């Protein structure tokens, strides 16, 4: 039989970048597989990261599949495993198994405008699509990002975003006014309503806290987006990643295997179990 589906491959951390400090710290890690044998992933897929002795945690892969040199993960410090990950340094070994999940149907989106809407750490799952679309800009229409965080300090990928502004439309927001902030102040859904992106030939991809997603969808619906034009990702507690351990299901869907990417048309038919 093949190597067990539960055995992670060893990977070395080659870069650690602190995105956000404080109580809700976020760090971005880049890893390479120890023996060179990696895997190909699709945009929006996840991987199960291991810190041996602590356990595993399902994290979305934020690097584009077009990048072959490393895998990138942006991780919010939340529990036992992610706290241990935050304590790791360049050169440390972790385990990675995957990739898991369905990923975004980006091939279906060719020729369309892509509207990315993210909040907080929610930029990470859509970052891989965004980067892929940016690399293959000629294949897609207009690219727009609407992204917000609680405060300017909570914004992830700060340098990348500054760079991104030169290449595509980027609207940023923070929840509460700050002295030096020149962009939108308010919640992400409000920024969406404010910027009024048009639904014509557009796919909206949103990820962030559940409450944000809920109101972003409402805002998009108000702007006449169809359910099929809206994509989001969901997360649930996971252990196996392969649809067997039984805890991440929403109705008969296992998020680890059948998700995490859903169009709103699909998701709204499923029970509210996330």
């Amino acid at each position, binding site marked *: *039989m*093949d*190597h*067990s*589906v*539960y*055995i*992670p491959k*060893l990977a070395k951390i080659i870069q650690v970048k602190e995105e956000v400090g404080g109580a809700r710290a976020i760090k971005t890690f880049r890893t390479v597989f120890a023996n060179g044998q990696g895997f190909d992933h699709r945009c929006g897929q996840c991987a199960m990261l*291991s810190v*041996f*002795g*602590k*356990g*595993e945690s399902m994290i979305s892969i934020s690097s584009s599949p077009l990048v072959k040199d490393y895998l990138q993960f942006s991780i919010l410090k*939340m*529990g*036992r495993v*992610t706290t241990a990950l935050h304590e790791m340094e360049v*050169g*440390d*070994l972790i*385990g990675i198994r995957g990739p898991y999940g369905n990923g975004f149907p980006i091939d279906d989106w060719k020729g369309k405008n892509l509207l990315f809407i993210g909040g907080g750490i929610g930029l990470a799952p859509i970052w891989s699509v965004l980067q892929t679309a940016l690399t293959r800009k000629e294949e897609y229409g207009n690219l727009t990002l609407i992204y917000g965080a609680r405060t300017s300090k909570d914004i992830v990928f700060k340098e990348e975003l500054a760079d991104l502004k030169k290449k595509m439309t980027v609207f940023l927001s923070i929840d509460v006014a700050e002295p030096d902030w020149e962009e939108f102040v308010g919640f992400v859904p409000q920024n969406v309503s404010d910027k009024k992106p048009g639904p014509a030939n557009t796919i909206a991809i949103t990820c962030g806290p*559940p409450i944000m997603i809920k109101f972003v969808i409402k805002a998009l619906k108000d702007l006449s987006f169809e359910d099929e034009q809206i994509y989001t990702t969901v*997360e*649930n*507690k996971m*252990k*196996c990643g*392969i*649809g*067997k*351990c*039984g*805890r*991440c*299901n*929403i*109705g*008969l869907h296992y998020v680890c*295997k059948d998700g995490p990417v859903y169009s709103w048309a699909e998701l709204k038919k499923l*029970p509210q*179990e*996330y």
Partner: protein
Amino acid sequence: MEKILEKRSLQSWMKKLDSWTIYAPRKDGSERWNYGIAQNDSVGLNFTVTTLPAKALVFPQREVFLEFLKTVEESQETLKVNEVIPGKNPVVIFGVRPCDARAVSLLDRVFSGDFVDPYYWARRKQTVLVGLACDTPPWENCFCLSTEGSPHSEEGLDVLLTDLGDKYFVKTLTENGEKLVNLAKGLFKEPRLEDKKKAKAVHAEAEKKIVRRVKRAKKDLAAKLKGLFDSPLWDDESMSCIRCGICTYLCPSCHCFDINDEVDSVSPLRGKRVRTWDNCQFPDFTMHSSGHNPRPDKASRLRQRLFHKFQYFVEIYDKTMCTGCGRCISLCPVGIDIINVLDKVSDHGS
């Protein structure tokens, strides 16, 4: 093939199977039956039903996935990860009730598919199931006839024994089953016509003794359930639930699990990654690290148990993930009766 085995020869048959570890029901220091390794002095098959189903032998409570060891030599860290697949240990389980064997075949489905579970299959492929047809329902809440099963169902079994008084009617169902019989050829006799008739009669009689039924059949019930996801029924029916793990851990088809790292030594770091049983009735089963819980109350957890068995599984595999063994009903400390709940679902709105 069909054979006859004198009851007094059962012991001799087991002895012939010396390259297998043999499990048979025994009393383990209490009133209940459970599988134990059969000793030479082992009892026959005069048991009712094991409290823990055969599941527990192919999908044990604890399964080591891997071992890890971190060593530091001259400031160079190395991390070794070794896969631990269960080794060679062929097993014959005697005295598997048909419902429990059918449940194993459900587990076979779950642990196959896009991702094949090597730990499960390492055990499963080495396991031969010798069933014993029920002549009397072992639990008063048996309802296998409502789950496409029967007290003499053959699905999942390698051999089916039927008790004919002083002898067993033996029916082999797989190559493995034939192998077991062929290893002790001398002990088995050809059945006479009247033996076959008698076995049939025992089977028919047993079916008559099963009194409990679920009102609606598989697809009909699944469809009805689907419409009742948001019903207040779940609140009412789960009021007395104490959120223990009896209904799931003792269920022959429940298979949910947890994976944890067990650290044996901190420095050098040494330990194991281990799978253990887990279940949908525990609140921490679905609780996110953030504290958010998609199934925060007893109602949503009872609903999950029944939906998984009678709705989701039916949609995915066209089977109910329940074989009607009746354990969850008979052993529930507060008398939650899924037949009763399912019938309320059936009657809902009518």
